[in-house]
Protein backbone atom coordinates (compact mmCIF):
# COMPACT_ATOMS: atom_id res chain seq x y z
CA UNK A 1 0.00 0.00 0.00
CA UNK A 2 2.89 2.38 0.81
CA UNK A 3 4.15 1.86 -2.72
CA UNK A 4 0.91 3.26 -4.11
CA UNK A 5 1.06 6.31 -1.85
CA UNK A 6 4.62 6.99 -2.96
CA UNK A 7 3.63 6.84 -6.62
CA UNK A 8 0.53 8.99 -6.15
CA UNK A 9 2.62 11.46 -4.18
CA UNK A 10 5.23 11.72 -6.94
CA UNK A 11 2.51 12.11 -9.58
CA UNK A 12 0.98 14.96 -7.62
CA UNK A 13 4.31 16.67 -6.97
CA UNK A 14 5.35 16.44 -10.66
CA UNK A 15 2.13 18.16 -11.63
CA UNK A 16 2.40 20.84 -8.94
CA UNK A 17 6.01 21.61 -9.90
CA UNK A 18 4.97 21.89 -13.53
CA UNK A 19 2.19 24.30 -12.66
CA UNK A 20 4.37 26.34 -10.30
CA UNK A 21 7.12 26.80 -12.88
CA UNK A 22 4.56 27.62 -15.56
CA UNK A 23 3.02 30.35 -13.41
CA UNK A 24 6.48 31.82 -12.80
CA UNK A 25 7.56 31.60 -16.44
CA UNK A 26 4.25 32.14 -18.14
CA UNK A 27 5.65 34.68 -20.56
CA UNK A 28 8.45 32.51 -21.81
CA UNK A 29 8.54 29.46 -24.02
CA UNK A 30 10.46 27.53 -21.37
CA UNK A 31 7.52 27.82 -18.97
CA UNK A 32 4.95 26.35 -21.35
CA UNK A 33 7.27 23.61 -22.62
CA UNK A 34 8.06 22.65 -19.08
CA UNK A 35 4.37 22.49 -18.16
CA UNK A 36 3.64 20.25 -21.17
CA UNK A 37 6.53 18.02 -20.16
CA UNK A 38 5.38 17.84 -16.53
CA UNK A 39 1.83 16.96 -17.66
CA UNK A 40 3.17 14.19 -19.91
CA UNK A 41 5.27 12.86 -17.01
CA UNK A 42 2.18 12.97 -14.79
CA UNK A 43 0.10 11.07 -17.35
CA UNK A 44 2.95 8.64 -17.91
CA UNK A 45 3.22 7.97 -14.16
CA UNK A 46 -0.56 7.44 -13.95
CA UNK A 47 -0.59 4.99 -16.85
CA UNK A 48 2.42 3.15 -15.42
CA UNK A 49 0.54 2.91 -12.14
CA UNK A 50 -2.50 1.45 -13.90
CA UNK A 51 -0.28 -0.95 -15.82
CA UNK A 52 0.76 -2.37 -12.48
CA UNK A 53 -2.78 -2.14 -11.03
CA UNK A 54 -5.07 -2.41 -14.07
CA UNK A 55 -8.50 -0.74 -13.90
CA UNK A 56 -10.85 0.07 -16.81
CA UNK A 57 -8.37 -1.24 -19.41
CA UNK A 58 -6.23 -4.31 -19.41
CA UNK A 59 -2.58 -4.11 -18.33
CA UNK A 60 -1.68 -4.68 -21.97
CA UNK A 61 -3.57 -1.58 -23.08
CA UNK A 62 -2.04 0.47 -20.25
CA UNK A 63 1.41 -0.70 -21.36
CA UNK A 64 0.75 0.58 -24.90
CA UNK A 65 -0.31 3.93 -23.48
CA UNK A 66 2.75 4.07 -21.20
CA UNK A 67 5.14 3.34 -24.05
CA UNK A 68 3.44 5.93 -26.27
CA UNK A 69 3.71 8.52 -23.53
CA UNK A 70 7.40 7.64 -23.14
CA UNK A 71 7.99 8.64 -26.75
CA UNK A 72 5.87 11.78 -26.51
CA UNK A 73 7.59 12.69 -23.25
CA UNK A 74 11.11 12.36 -24.52
CA UNK A 75 10.19 14.26 -27.69
CA UNK A 76 8.86 17.10 -25.56
CA UNK A 77 11.94 16.93 -23.34
CA UNK A 78 14.07 17.34 -26.45
CA UNK A 79 12.03 20.39 -27.48
CA UNK A 80 12.44 21.77 -23.96
CA UNK A 81 16.24 21.38 -24.13
CA UNK A 82 16.28 23.24 -27.46
CA UNK A 83 14.16 26.06 -26.03
CA UNK A 84 16.12 26.48 -22.81
CA UNK A 85 19.40 26.42 -24.73
CA UNK A 86 18.15 29.38 -26.79
CA UNK A 87 18.52 27.44 -30.02
CA UNK A 88 16.11 28.26 -32.81
CA UNK A 89 13.73 25.45 -33.76
CA UNK A 90 14.53 26.30 -37.37
CA UNK A 91 18.02 24.89 -36.92
CA UNK A 92 16.55 21.50 -36.04
CA UNK A 93 13.57 21.69 -38.40
CA UNK A 94 14.33 18.63 -40.52
CA UNK A 95 15.48 16.28 -37.71
CA UNK A 96 12.46 17.39 -35.66
CA UNK A 97 10.02 16.67 -38.49
CA UNK A 98 11.62 13.28 -39.17
CA UNK A 99 11.63 12.30 -35.51
CA UNK A 100 8.05 13.53 -35.13
CA UNK A 101 6.90 11.33 -38.02
CA UNK A 102 8.95 8.42 -36.68
CA UNK A 103 7.47 8.87 -33.19
CA UNK A 104 3.94 8.99 -34.55
CA UNK A 105 4.58 5.85 -36.65
CA UNK A 106 5.93 3.95 -33.66
CA UNK A 107 2.97 5.00 -31.53
CA UNK A 108 0.56 3.85 -34.24
CA UNK A 109 2.49 0.58 -34.60
CA UNK A 110 2.21 0.03 -30.86
CA UNK A 111 -1.55 0.04 -31.13
CA UNK A 112 -1.69 -2.25 -34.16
CA UNK A 113 -2.01 -5.60 -32.57
CA UNK A 114 1.07 -7.79 -32.63
CA UNK A 115 3.25 -5.37 -34.53
CA UNK A 116 5.57 -4.39 -31.73
CA UNK A 117 4.38 -6.06 -28.57
CA UNK A 118 2.25 -9.10 -28.08
CA UNK A 119 0.09 -10.01 -25.15
CA UNK A 120 0.78 -13.42 -23.77
CA UNK A 121 -1.18 -13.73 -20.56
CA UNK A 122 0.34 -10.70 -18.86
CA UNK A 123 3.82 -11.47 -20.08
CA UNK A 124 4.38 -8.77 -22.64
CA UNK A 125 6.49 -9.94 -25.53
CA UNK A 126 8.62 -7.40 -27.37
CA UNK A 127 9.21 -8.13 -31.02
CA UNK A 128 12.67 -7.60 -32.60
CA UNK A 129 11.30 -4.67 -34.63
CA UNK A 130 10.55 -2.80 -31.42
CA UNK A 131 14.29 -2.16 -31.24
CA UNK A 132 13.43 0.93 -33.32
CA UNK A 133 11.56 2.20 -30.27
CA UNK A 134 14.71 2.02 -28.15
CA UNK A 135 16.83 3.40 -30.97
CA UNK A 136 14.61 6.48 -31.12
CA UNK A 137 14.88 6.96 -27.35
CA UNK A 138 18.63 6.61 -27.60
CA UNK A 139 18.90 9.20 -30.39
CA UNK A 140 16.82 11.74 -28.46
CA UNK A 141 18.89 11.09 -25.34
CA UNK A 142 22.23 11.40 -27.13
CA UNK A 143 21.25 14.59 -28.98
CA UNK A 144 19.81 16.18 -25.85
CA UNK A 145 22.94 15.35 -23.87
CA UNK A 146 25.18 16.71 -26.63
CA UNK A 147 23.29 20.03 -26.79
CA UNK A 148 23.38 20.43 -23.01
CA UNK A 149 27.02 19.46 -22.85
CA UNK A 150 27.99 21.99 -25.49
CA UNK A 151 26.00 24.70 -23.74
CA UNK A 152 27.56 23.96 -20.37
CA UNK A 153 31.02 24.19 -21.93
CA UNK A 154 30.38 27.36 -23.89
CA UNK A 155 28.47 29.35 -21.30
CA UNK A 156 29.41 30.68 -17.93
CA UNK A 157 27.65 31.85 -14.77
CA UNK A 158 23.95 31.14 -14.40
CA UNK A 159 23.59 29.69 -17.91
CA UNK A 160 26.37 27.22 -17.23
CA UNK A 161 24.79 26.15 -13.95
CA UNK A 162 21.40 25.83 -15.66
CA UNK A 163 22.81 23.45 -18.27
CA UNK A 164 24.61 21.49 -15.57
CA UNK A 165 21.44 21.03 -13.48
CA UNK A 166 19.53 19.76 -16.47
CA UNK A 167 22.42 17.54 -17.51
CA UNK A 168 22.65 15.98 -14.04
CA UNK A 169 18.88 15.43 -13.83
CA UNK A 170 18.70 14.12 -17.38
CA UNK A 171 21.72 11.83 -16.98
CA UNK A 172 20.49 10.44 -13.69
CA UNK A 173 17.05 9.79 -15.16
CA UNK A 174 18.39 8.04 -18.25
CA UNK A 175 20.78 5.84 -16.24
CA UNK A 176 18.18 4.92 -13.64
CA UNK A 177 15.46 4.19 -16.21
CA UNK A 178 17.86 2.04 -18.24
CA UNK A 179 18.74 0.11 -15.06
CA UNK A 180 15.08 -0.38 -14.19
CA UNK A 181 14.00 -1.44 -17.65
CA UNK A 182 17.02 -3.25 -18.97
CA UNK A 183 19.71 -4.23 -16.47
CA UNK A 184 17.62 -5.21 -13.45
CA UNK A 185 15.19 -7.37 -15.52
CA UNK A 186 18.15 -8.94 -17.35
CA UNK A 187 20.07 -9.70 -14.16
CA UNK A 188 17.26 -10.74 -11.88
CA UNK A 189 14.64 -11.78 -14.39
CA UNK A 190 12.17 -9.70 -12.41
CA UNK A 191 10.29 -6.59 -13.55
CA UNK A 192 8.94 -5.72 -10.17
CA UNK A 193 10.97 -2.51 -9.72
CA UNK A 194 9.38 -0.85 -12.72
CA UNK A 195 7.04 1.04 -10.40
CA UNK A 196 10.02 3.19 -9.29
CA UNK A 197 9.98 4.98 -12.68
CA UNK A 198 7.70 7.87 -11.63
CA UNK A 199 9.90 8.58 -8.62
CA UNK A 200 13.00 8.89 -10.79
CA UNK A 201 10.98 11.00 -13.20
CA UNK A 202 10.17 13.26 -10.27
CA UNK A 203 13.89 13.81 -9.82
CA UNK A 204 14.17 14.85 -13.47
CA UNK A 205 11.18 17.20 -13.20
CA UNK A 206 12.69 18.66 -10.01
CA UNK A 207 16.10 19.34 -11.51
CA UNK A 208 14.58 20.93 -14.62
CA UNK A 209 12.35 23.11 -12.46
CA UNK A 210 15.31 24.09 -10.30
CA UNK A 211 17.28 25.04 -13.41
CA UNK A 212 14.47 27.30 -14.62
CA UNK A 213 13.53 29.02 -11.40
CA UNK A 214 16.99 29.57 -10.01
CA UNK A 215 16.40 33.27 -10.60
CA UNK A 216 13.43 33.17 -8.25
CA UNK A 217 15.01 31.09 -5.54
CA UNK A 218 15.36 34.00 -3.15
CA UNK A 219 11.62 34.59 -3.50
CA UNK A 220 11.03 30.90 -2.84
CA UNK A 221 12.93 31.29 0.42
CA UNK A 222 10.41 33.90 1.51
CA UNK A 223 7.54 31.54 0.64
CA UNK A 224 9.18 28.70 2.58
CA UNK A 225 9.71 30.98 5.55
CA UNK A 226 6.04 32.01 5.45
CA UNK A 227 4.96 28.35 5.30
CA UNK A 228 7.25 27.48 8.19
CA UNK A 229 6.04 30.35 10.36
CA UNK A 230 2.43 29.58 9.37
CA UNK A 231 2.73 25.89 10.32
CA UNK A 232 4.28 26.56 13.72
CA UNK A 233 1.83 29.43 14.33
CA UNK A 234 -1.18 27.23 13.57
CA UNK A 235 0.14 24.49 15.86
CA UNK A 236 0.65 27.02 18.64
CA UNK A 237 -2.84 28.42 18.04
CA UNK A 238 -4.52 24.98 18.32
CA UNK A 239 -2.41 23.89 21.28
CA UNK A 240 -4.29 25.89 24.00
CA UNK A 241 -7.57 24.19 23.00
CA UNK A 242 -6.05 20.74 23.36
CA UNK A 243 -4.38 21.33 26.71
CA UNK A 244 -6.60 20.79 29.75
CA UNK A 245 -4.54 22.80 32.26
CA UNK A 246 -5.60 26.46 32.51
CA UNK A 247 -2.09 27.69 33.38
CA UNK A 248 -0.62 25.89 30.40
CA UNK A 249 -3.39 27.33 28.22
CA UNK A 250 -2.31 30.84 29.27
CA UNK A 251 1.37 29.98 28.77
CA UNK A 252 0.88 28.54 25.29
CA UNK A 253 -1.30 31.54 24.32
CA UNK A 254 1.50 33.89 25.43
CA UNK A 255 4.00 31.77 23.50
CA UNK A 256 1.71 31.99 20.47
CA UNK A 257 1.51 35.78 20.70
CA UNK A 258 5.26 36.08 21.13
CA UNK A 259 5.76 33.76 18.21
CA UNK A 260 3.48 35.95 16.07
CA UNK A 261 5.79 38.91 16.68
CA UNK A 262 8.89 36.80 16.09
CA UNK A 263 7.36 35.27 12.96
CA UNK A 264 6.47 38.69 11.59
CA UNK A 265 10.09 39.83 11.92
CA UNK A 266 11.45 36.56 10.58
CA UNK A 267 9.40 36.94 7.41
CA UNK A 268 10.23 40.62 7.16
CA UNK A 269 13.98 39.99 7.50
CA UNK A 270 13.94 37.16 4.97
CA UNK A 271 11.97 39.33 2.59
CA UNK A 272 14.33 42.29 2.97
CA UNK A 273 17.35 40.09 2.62
CA UNK A 274 16.05 38.54 -0.57
CA UNK A 275 15.25 42.01 -1.94
CA UNK A 276 18.77 43.17 -1.11
CA UNK A 277 20.26 40.13 -2.74
CA UNK A 278 18.21 40.72 -5.88
CA UNK A 279 19.26 44.34 -5.91
CA UNK A 280 22.92 43.38 -5.50
CA UNK A 281 22.67 40.89 -8.35
CA UNK A 282 20.97 43.47 -10.53
CA UNK A 283 23.66 46.04 -9.75
CA UNK A 284 26.40 43.53 -10.51
CA UNK A 285 24.83 42.79 -13.89
CA UNK A 286 24.40 46.51 -14.54
CA UNK A 287 28.02 47.15 -13.60
CA UNK A 288 29.23 44.49 -15.98
CA UNK A 289 27.15 46.03 -18.74
CA UNK A 290 28.56 49.48 -17.99
CA UNK A 291 32.13 48.19 -17.96
CA UNK A 292 31.57 46.63 -21.37
CA UNK A 293 30.01 49.82 -22.69
CA UNK A 294 32.91 51.88 -21.36
CA UNK A 295 35.34 49.59 -23.07
CA UNK A 296 33.51 49.87 -26.37
CA UNK A 297 33.32 53.63 -25.98
CA UNK A 298 37.07 53.87 -25.40
CA UNK A 299 37.86 51.81 -28.48
CA UNK A 300 35.56 53.91 -30.60
CA UNK A 301 36.93 57.13 -29.07
CA UNK A 302 40.43 55.98 -29.90
CA UNK A 303 39.54 55.47 -33.53
CA UNK A 304 37.55 58.68 -33.90
CA UNK A 305 40.14 60.91 -32.23
CA UNK A 306 43.08 59.44 -34.08
CA UNK A 307 41.46 59.53 -37.52
CA UNK A 308 41.37 63.34 -38.06
CA UNK A 309 44.67 63.76 -36.25
CA UNK A 310 46.44 61.56 -38.82
CA UNK A 311 46.01 63.98 -41.78
CA UNK A 312 46.45 67.03 -39.51
CA UNK A 313 49.85 65.81 -38.39
CA UNK A 314 50.67 64.49 -41.86
CA UNK A 315 49.93 67.74 -43.73
CA UNK A 316 51.73 69.88 -41.12
CA UNK A 317 54.74 67.65 -41.48
CA UNK A 318 54.70 68.10 -45.26
CA UNK A 319 54.11 71.85 -45.14
CA UNK A 320 57.03 72.33 -42.77
CA UNK A 321 59.23 70.06 -44.89
CA UNK A 322 58.56 72.41 -47.79
CA UNK A 323 56.78 69.86 -49.96
CA UNK A 324 54.33 72.50 -51.24
CA UNK A 325 56.99 75.22 -51.60
CA UNK A 326 59.02 77.28 -49.15
CA UNK A 327 57.09 79.51 -46.77
CA UNK A 328 58.72 82.92 -47.08
CA UNK A 329 56.77 84.66 -44.32
CA UNK A 330 58.65 83.94 -41.06
CA UNK A 331 55.55 84.70 -38.93
CA UNK A 332 53.46 82.12 -40.78
CA UNK A 333 56.26 79.61 -40.48
CA UNK A 334 56.59 80.30 -36.74
CA UNK A 335 52.83 79.85 -36.25
CA UNK A 336 52.87 76.63 -38.24
CA UNK A 337 55.65 75.28 -36.02
CA UNK A 338 53.53 76.30 -33.03
CA UNK A 339 50.51 74.44 -34.47
CA UNK A 340 52.65 71.36 -35.11
CA UNK A 341 53.80 71.40 -31.46
CA UNK A 342 50.19 71.75 -30.29
CA UNK A 343 49.07 68.89 -32.52
CA UNK A 344 51.84 66.76 -31.02
CA UNK A 345 50.77 67.79 -27.50
CA UNK A 346 47.16 66.96 -28.33
CA UNK A 347 48.30 63.64 -29.72
CA UNK A 348 50.35 62.68 -26.67
CA UNK A 349 47.62 63.84 -24.26
CA UNK A 350 45.07 61.78 -26.13
CA UNK A 351 47.32 58.73 -26.29
CA UNK A 352 48.10 59.15 -22.57
CA UNK A 353 44.43 59.36 -21.70
CA UNK A 354 43.59 56.31 -23.79
CA UNK A 355 46.58 54.52 -22.33
CA UNK A 356 45.51 55.16 -18.73
CA UNK A 357 41.95 54.09 -19.48
CA UNK A 358 43.20 51.02 -21.35
CA UNK A 359 45.35 50.03 -18.35
CA UNK A 360 42.39 50.57 -16.02
CA UNK A 361 40.02 48.32 -17.94
CA UNK A 362 42.74 45.78 -18.60
CA UNK A 363 42.80 46.37 -22.37
CA UNK A 364 46.45 47.31 -22.18
CA UNK A 365 49.19 45.83 -20.08
CA UNK A 366 52.55 47.05 -18.84
CA UNK A 367 55.53 46.25 -21.00
CA UNK A 368 58.00 45.30 -18.26
CA UNK A 369 61.72 45.21 -19.01
CA UNK A 370 65.01 45.70 -17.17
CA UNK A 371 65.47 49.37 -16.51
CA UNK A 372 68.23 51.42 -14.89
CA UNK A 373 66.07 54.14 -13.42
CA UNK A 374 69.08 56.37 -12.71
CA UNK A 375 69.85 56.59 -16.42
CA UNK A 376 66.19 57.18 -17.18
CA UNK A 377 66.01 60.16 -14.78
CA UNK A 378 69.25 61.55 -16.17
CA UNK A 379 67.76 61.44 -19.65
CA UNK A 380 64.68 63.35 -18.48
CA UNK A 381 66.84 65.97 -16.75
CA UNK A 382 68.86 66.51 -19.91
CA UNK A 383 65.69 66.87 -21.94
CA UNK A 384 64.07 69.38 -19.61
CA UNK A 385 67.22 71.35 -18.78
CA UNK A 386 66.65 73.93 -21.58
CA UNK A 387 63.20 74.66 -20.15
CA UNK A 388 64.68 75.24 -16.69
CA UNK A 389 67.51 77.34 -18.04
CA UNK A 390 65.06 79.49 -19.93
CA UNK A 391 63.53 80.45 -16.57
CA UNK A 392 67.01 80.70 -14.97
CA UNK A 393 66.26 77.77 -12.69
CA UNK A 394 68.64 75.04 -11.63
CA UNK A 395 67.72 71.41 -12.32
CA UNK A 396 69.73 68.84 -10.37
CA UNK A 397 69.66 65.08 -10.07
CA UNK A 398 71.53 63.82 -7.02
CA UNK A 399 72.12 60.31 -8.21
CA UNK A 400 72.47 57.47 -5.72
CA UNK A 401 73.28 53.88 -6.63
CA UNK A 402 69.99 52.38 -7.75
CA UNK A 403 69.13 48.79 -8.64
CA UNK A 404 68.02 47.63 -12.08
CA UNK A 405 64.26 47.18 -11.91
CA UNK A 406 61.59 45.56 -14.05
CA UNK A 407 59.56 48.54 -15.24
CA UNK A 408 57.59 49.77 -18.22
CA UNK A 409 60.23 52.23 -19.40
CA UNK A 410 58.00 54.47 -21.49
CA UNK A 411 55.30 54.84 -18.89
CA UNK A 412 57.65 55.38 -15.95
CA UNK A 413 59.51 57.91 -18.04
CA UNK A 414 56.25 59.70 -18.80
CA UNK A 415 55.28 59.65 -15.10
CA UNK A 416 58.56 61.22 -13.90
CA UNK A 417 58.74 63.57 -16.87
CA UNK A 418 55.32 65.05 -16.06
CA UNK A 419 56.25 65.65 -12.42
CA UNK A 420 59.54 67.36 -13.28
CA UNK A 421 57.86 69.37 -16.03
CA UNK A 422 55.17 70.53 -13.58
CA UNK A 423 57.80 71.42 -10.97
CA UNK A 424 59.57 73.68 -13.49
CA UNK A 425 56.26 75.26 -14.55
CA UNK A 426 55.29 76.13 -10.97
CA UNK A 427 58.69 77.51 -9.93
CA UNK A 428 59.88 81.01 -10.72
CA UNK A 429 62.93 81.29 -8.48
CA UNK A 430 65.45 78.70 -7.32
CA UNK A 431 65.01 75.37 -9.03
CA UNK A 432 64.18 71.70 -8.95
CA UNK A 433 66.14 68.92 -7.26
CA UNK A 434 65.58 65.22 -7.86
CA UNK A 435 66.82 62.78 -5.24
CA UNK A 436 66.32 59.06 -4.80
CA UNK A 437 66.78 56.51 -2.05
CA UNK A 438 65.91 52.94 -1.13
CA UNK A 439 63.74 52.63 1.97
CA UNK A 440 61.51 49.78 3.23
CA UNK A 441 62.17 47.79 0.05
CA UNK A 442 60.85 50.69 -1.95
CA UNK A 443 62.50 53.00 -4.38
CA UNK A 444 61.60 56.55 -3.43
CA UNK A 445 62.13 59.41 -5.83
CA UNK A 446 61.61 62.97 -4.61
CA UNK A 447 61.06 65.89 -6.98
CA UNK A 448 61.48 69.01 -4.84
CA UNK A 449 60.98 72.50 -6.11
CA UNK A 450 61.26 75.96 -4.58
CA UNK A 451 58.03 77.02 -6.26
CA UNK A 452 54.60 78.24 -5.19
CA UNK A 453 54.05 75.36 -2.73
CA UNK A 454 50.79 73.88 -1.55
CA UNK A 455 48.85 74.45 1.66
CA UNK A 456 47.53 71.61 3.76
CA UNK A 457 44.08 71.76 2.24
CA UNK A 458 45.46 71.46 -1.27
CA UNK A 459 47.65 68.51 -0.31
CA UNK A 460 44.61 66.79 1.21
CA UNK A 461 42.74 67.40 -2.01
CA UNK A 462 45.56 65.87 -3.94
CA UNK A 463 45.93 62.85 -1.67
CA UNK A 464 42.21 62.14 -1.86
CA UNK A 465 42.53 61.88 -5.61
CA UNK A 466 40.22 64.83 -6.25
CA UNK A 467 42.41 66.06 -9.04
CA UNK A 468 39.59 66.45 -11.50
CA UNK A 469 36.84 67.51 -9.20
CA UNK A 470 35.11 70.72 -10.10
CA UNK A 471 35.54 73.52 -7.66
CA UNK A 472 37.56 76.55 -6.76
CA UNK A 473 40.30 74.57 -5.06
CA UNK A 474 41.17 72.49 -8.09
CA UNK A 475 41.10 75.48 -10.41
CA UNK A 476 43.49 77.31 -8.11
CA UNK A 477 45.71 74.26 -7.89
CA UNK A 478 46.19 73.15 -11.42
CA UNK A 479 44.58 75.59 -13.75
CA UNK A 480 42.83 74.34 -16.85
CA UNK A 481 44.43 71.27 -18.38
CA UNK A 482 47.36 71.13 -16.01
CA UNK A 483 46.08 68.24 -13.93
CA UNK A 484 46.14 65.88 -16.89
CA UNK A 485 49.86 65.11 -16.83
CA UNK A 486 49.78 64.64 -13.07
CA UNK A 487 46.85 62.29 -13.42
CA UNK A 488 48.75 60.23 -15.99
CA UNK A 489 51.73 60.05 -13.61
CA UNK A 490 49.54 58.87 -10.75
CA UNK A 491 47.90 56.18 -12.87
CA UNK A 492 51.16 54.91 -14.40
CA UNK A 493 52.81 54.64 -10.98
CA UNK A 494 49.69 52.99 -9.57
CA UNK A 495 49.72 50.27 -12.25
CA UNK A 496 53.30 49.52 -11.22
CA UNK A 497 52.04 48.92 -7.68
CA UNK A 498 53.44 52.21 -6.41
CA UNK A 499 52.05 55.58 -5.38
CA UNK A 500 52.62 59.31 -5.57
CA UNK A 501 52.25 61.69 -2.66
CA UNK A 502 53.11 65.30 -1.96
CA UNK A 503 54.63 67.34 0.87
CA UNK A 504 54.87 71.07 1.24
CA UNK A 505 55.70 73.57 3.96
CA UNK A 506 52.82 75.70 2.73
CA UNK A 507 52.28 78.53 0.27
CA UNK A 508 55.52 79.89 -1.17
CA UNK A 509 57.62 77.20 0.48
CA UNK A 510 58.02 74.79 -2.42
CA UNK A 511 56.59 71.33 -2.98
CA UNK A 512 58.06 67.85 -2.94
CA UNK A 513 56.35 65.16 -4.96
CA UNK A 514 57.28 61.63 -3.95
CA UNK A 515 57.14 58.53 -6.10
CA UNK A 516 57.24 55.22 -4.24
CA UNK A 517 57.84 52.07 -6.30
CA UNK A 518 58.15 48.52 -4.96
CA UNK A 519 61.55 47.10 -5.89
CA UNK A 520 61.49 43.99 -7.98
CA UNK A 521 65.19 43.31 -8.32
CA UNK A 522 66.02 40.65 -10.84
Amino acid at each position, binding site marked *: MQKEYLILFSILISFIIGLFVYLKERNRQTGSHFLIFAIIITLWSISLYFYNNPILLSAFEWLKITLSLTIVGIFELFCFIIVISNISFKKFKIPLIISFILSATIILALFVSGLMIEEKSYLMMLHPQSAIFFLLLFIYGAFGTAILFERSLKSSGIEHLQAMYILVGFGFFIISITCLNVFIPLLTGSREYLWLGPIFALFLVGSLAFAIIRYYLSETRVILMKLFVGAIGTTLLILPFLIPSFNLKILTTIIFLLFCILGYYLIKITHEESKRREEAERLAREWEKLARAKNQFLLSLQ*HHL*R*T*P*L*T*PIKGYLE*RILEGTYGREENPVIKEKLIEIKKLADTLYSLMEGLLDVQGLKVG*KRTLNLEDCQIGNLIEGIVEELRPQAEQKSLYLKFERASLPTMKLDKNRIREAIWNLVDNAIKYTNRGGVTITSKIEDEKLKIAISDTGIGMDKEEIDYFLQGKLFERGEMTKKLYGPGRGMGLNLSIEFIKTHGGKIWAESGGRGKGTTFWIGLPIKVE
Partner: protein
Amino acid sequence: MKPKILIIEDDKPTINLFEEVFSMAGFEIEVLDLGQKAIERLKEIREGKKEKPDLILLDLILPDMNGISVLKEARKYPETKNLKIYALTNYSSPESNQELTNEGIDKILIKVQYSLNELIEIIKEGLKSK
Protein backbone atom coordinates in the same frame (compact mmCIF):
# COMPACT_ATOMS: atom_id res chain seq x y z
CA MET B 1 58.41 49.56 -62.66
CA LYS B 2 56.63 51.34 -59.85
CA PRO B 3 55.54 49.14 -56.93
CA LYS B 4 51.73 48.86 -56.75
CA ILE B 5 50.04 49.62 -53.46
CA LEU B 6 46.37 48.97 -52.87
CA ILE B 7 44.97 51.12 -50.06
CA ILE B 8 41.70 50.06 -48.45
CA GLU B 9 40.63 53.12 -46.52
CA ASP B 10 37.42 55.13 -46.16
CA ASP B 11 38.43 58.40 -44.48
CA LYS B 12 38.57 60.98 -47.27
CA PRO B 13 41.23 63.34 -45.78
CA THR B 14 43.45 60.35 -44.98
CA ILE B 15 42.98 59.02 -48.53
CA ASN B 16 43.97 62.39 -50.03
CA LEU B 17 47.07 62.56 -47.86
CA PHE B 18 48.16 59.00 -48.58
CA GLU B 19 47.55 59.33 -52.31
CA GLU B 20 49.66 62.44 -52.44
CA VAL B 21 52.47 61.19 -50.23
CA PHE B 22 52.76 57.68 -51.59
CA SER B 23 52.63 58.66 -55.26
CA MET B 24 55.34 61.25 -54.61
CA ALA B 25 57.36 58.52 -52.94
CA GLY B 26 57.23 56.63 -56.23
CA PHE B 27 54.46 54.12 -55.66
CA GLU B 28 51.50 53.38 -57.90
CA ILE B 29 48.43 53.91 -55.74
CA GLU B 30 44.90 52.62 -55.94
CA VAL B 31 42.31 53.27 -53.25
CA LEU B 32 39.20 51.23 -52.46
CA ASP B 33 36.89 52.83 -49.92
CA LEU B 34 34.61 49.89 -49.10
CA GLY B 35 35.24 46.39 -47.76
CA GLN B 36 32.95 44.99 -50.45
CA LYS B 37 35.06 46.57 -53.18
CA ALA B 38 38.15 44.96 -51.65
CA ILE B 39 36.46 41.56 -51.59
CA GLU B 40 35.47 41.98 -55.26
CA ARG B 41 39.01 43.00 -56.12
CA LEU B 42 40.35 39.85 -54.45
CA LYS B 43 37.95 37.82 -56.60
CA GLU B 44 39.16 39.57 -59.76
CA ILE B 45 42.76 38.85 -58.75
CA ARG B 46 41.87 35.18 -58.28
CA GLU B 47 40.25 35.05 -61.69
CA GLY B 48 43.31 36.71 -63.21
CA LYS B 49 41.30 39.77 -64.34
CA LYS B 50 43.38 42.14 -62.22
CA GLU B 51 47.02 42.26 -61.31
CA LYS B 52 48.28 41.46 -57.85
CA PRO B 53 49.36 44.53 -55.87
CA ASP B 54 52.79 44.44 -54.25
CA LEU B 55 51.29 45.54 -50.96
CA ILE B 56 47.84 46.06 -49.48
CA LEU B 57 47.34 48.67 -46.75
CA LEU B 58 44.19 47.68 -44.93
CA ASP B 59 42.15 49.86 -42.58
CA LEU B 60 40.21 47.91 -39.95
CA ILE B 61 37.15 50.09 -39.57
CA LEU B 62 35.39 50.26 -42.91
CA PRO B 63 31.85 51.57 -43.47
CA ASP B 64 30.44 48.21 -44.54
CA MET B 65 32.60 45.65 -42.76
CA ASN B 66 35.51 44.89 -40.52
CA GLY B 67 38.89 44.93 -42.28
CA ILE B 68 39.71 41.55 -40.74
CA SER B 69 37.03 40.00 -43.00
CA VAL B 70 38.97 41.27 -46.03
CA LEU B 71 42.16 39.73 -44.65
CA LYS B 72 40.38 36.40 -44.04
CA GLU B 73 39.00 36.43 -47.57
CA ALA B 74 42.47 36.98 -48.99
CA ARG B 75 44.03 34.22 -46.91
CA LYS B 76 41.28 31.77 -47.86
CA TYR B 77 42.38 31.23 -51.47
CA PRO B 78 45.75 29.98 -52.76
CA GLU B 79 45.94 32.77 -55.39
CA THR B 80 45.72 35.60 -52.83
CA LYS B 81 47.06 33.76 -49.81
CA ASN B 82 50.58 35.16 -50.07
CA LEU B 83 49.64 38.80 -50.70
CA LYS B 84 51.57 41.15 -48.45
CA ILE B 85 48.98 42.85 -46.26
CA TYR B 86 49.68 45.53 -43.63
CA ALA B 87 46.96 46.69 -41.28
CA LEU B 88 47.25 50.48 -41.38
CA THR B 89 44.67 51.64 -38.91
CA ASN B 90 43.89 53.83 -35.95
CA TYR B 91 41.93 51.11 -34.22
CA SER B 92 43.79 48.74 -31.99
CA SER B 93 42.77 46.44 -29.19
CA PRO B 94 44.50 43.32 -27.87
CA GLU B 95 41.68 41.22 -29.33
CA SER B 96 41.87 42.70 -32.81
CA ASN B 97 45.68 42.47 -32.81
CA GLN B 98 45.47 38.84 -31.78
CA GLU B 99 42.92 38.08 -34.47
CA LEU B 100 45.00 39.84 -37.12
CA THR B 101 48.07 37.85 -36.11
CA ASN B 102 46.10 34.61 -36.17
CA GLU B 103 44.85 35.42 -39.65
CA GLY B 104 48.40 36.01 -40.85
CA ILE B 105 48.71 39.80 -41.11
CA ASP B 106 52.21 40.87 -42.18
CA LYS B 107 52.39 44.00 -40.02
CA ILE B 108 50.15 46.12 -37.81
CA LEU B 109 50.75 49.87 -38.10
CA ILE B 110 48.95 52.57 -36.13
CA LYS B 111 48.64 55.48 -38.56
CA VAL B 112 48.85 58.30 -36.08
CA GLN B 113 51.95 56.90 -34.41
CA TYR B 114 54.22 57.31 -37.45
CA SER B 115 55.40 60.31 -39.34
CA LEU B 116 54.83 60.07 -43.11
CA ASN B 117 58.55 59.59 -43.73
CA GLU B 118 58.65 56.74 -41.26
CA LEU B 119 55.66 55.13 -42.97
CA ILE B 120 57.32 55.37 -46.37
CA GLU B 121 60.49 53.82 -44.96
CA ILE B 122 58.54 50.93 -43.45
CA ILE B 123 56.72 50.33 -46.74
CA LYS B 124 59.93 50.49 -48.81
CA GLU B 125 61.54 48.05 -46.39
CA GLY B 126 58.52 45.75 -46.69
CA LEU B 127 58.55 45.86 -50.49
CA LYS B 128 62.22 44.86 -50.55
CA SER B 129 61.61 41.62 -48.66
CA LYS B 130 59.30 40.03 -51.16
